[in-house]
């Protein structure tokens, strides 16, 4: 009963179902491998459960739980390269944009995904594909780097590299950047209008992006530490 009470989310419930199905499936398969009974009807049906139905359930529930977990800050922070970012957003005294937003109880646990995911129709898919690319770079370029990724290539600013490579136009880049903030900030709240009156139309038309002014997003990031700019410039030469 206490273990049922300790399930606090759908993700935890799905994990429990997946593990239970995996255990049941493994029990059937081990029984078959140890006893080697003749392939009668009962054995066939049991094997169909152990080889088909239960593993499919494990895969389905495991996939959903896995995808859910990939949205979490904990998941993003599991790569050591992200250490400085994660420590900053978890610091209750930090005034960086990322830290302030990560303290929001509505989405703070998923703050990386909330701000960095593509938000178009296939945004979830393109974000996961980008994540696979990140994993590739992690394995090939950052695996042997220092505790916070020191010694690895500098981390490019979000979407800025696409703009620099010409994959995104300036207009599309601005729209994406403001689109992230616009998920919550409508630009029509009275306090916002009061503070941003002079730029309101420019921001709404994406002629100006929010982070032009609110640019202390990840101040402890590797690329923004003292000396990092110089090192990046030397690397370019």
């Amino acid at each position: 009963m206490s273990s049922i009470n300790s399930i606090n989310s759908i993700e935890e419930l799905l994990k429990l179902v997946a593990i239970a199905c995996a255990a049941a499936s493994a029990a059937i398969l081990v029984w078959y491998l140890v006893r080697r009974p003749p392939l009668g009807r009962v054995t066939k049906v049991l094997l169909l459960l152990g080889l088909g139905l239960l593993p499919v359930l494990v895969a389905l529930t495991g996939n959903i739980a896995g995808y859910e977990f990939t949205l979490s800050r904990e998941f993003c922070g599991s790569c050591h390269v992200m250490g400085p970012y994660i420590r900053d957003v978890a610091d209750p005294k930090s005034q960086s944009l990322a830290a302030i937003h990560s303290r929001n109880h509505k989405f703070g646990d998923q703050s990386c995904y909330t701000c960095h995911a593509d938000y178009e129709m296939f945004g979830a898919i393109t974000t996961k594909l980008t994540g696979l690319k990140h994993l590739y770079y992690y394995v090939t370029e950052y695996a042997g780097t220092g505790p916070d990724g020191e010694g690895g290539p500098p981390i490019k600013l979000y979407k800025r590299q696409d703009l620099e490579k010409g994959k995104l136009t300036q207009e599309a880049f601005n729209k994406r950047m403001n689109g992230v903030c616009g998920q919550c900030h409508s630009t029509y709240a009275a306090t916002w209008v009061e503070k941003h009156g002079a730029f309101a139309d420019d921001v709404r038309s994406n002629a100006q992006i929010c982070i032009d002014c609110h640019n202390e997003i990840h101040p402890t990031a590797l690329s923004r530490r003292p000396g990092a700019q110089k090192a990046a410039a030397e690397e370019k030469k």
Partner: protein
Amino acid sequence: MRHEHVKKLVFVSAIATLLALALMAASILSPKPILLVLAMSVGQGIGTLSLALYLLAIVLDLQGGGVGDNALEAAREAGSGAKPPAAT
């Protein structure tokens, strides 16, 4: 002979499924990026392949008259002249 093939297929299928389950369970218990990707690609690939092997084994088994009828199978292997049931 076909019966031996069926048994081997089921054996391989069971071992492969255990491997796939281990990968998927590991990714659930310890959700690290590499484990998750392995479970969702290699793990599920092996799982699908093993299910296909099992279904193939069942089809082969049914084509051979069904090894579920153990007495008949034993009689056939012993060459006692017992005939499989006529197809309906």
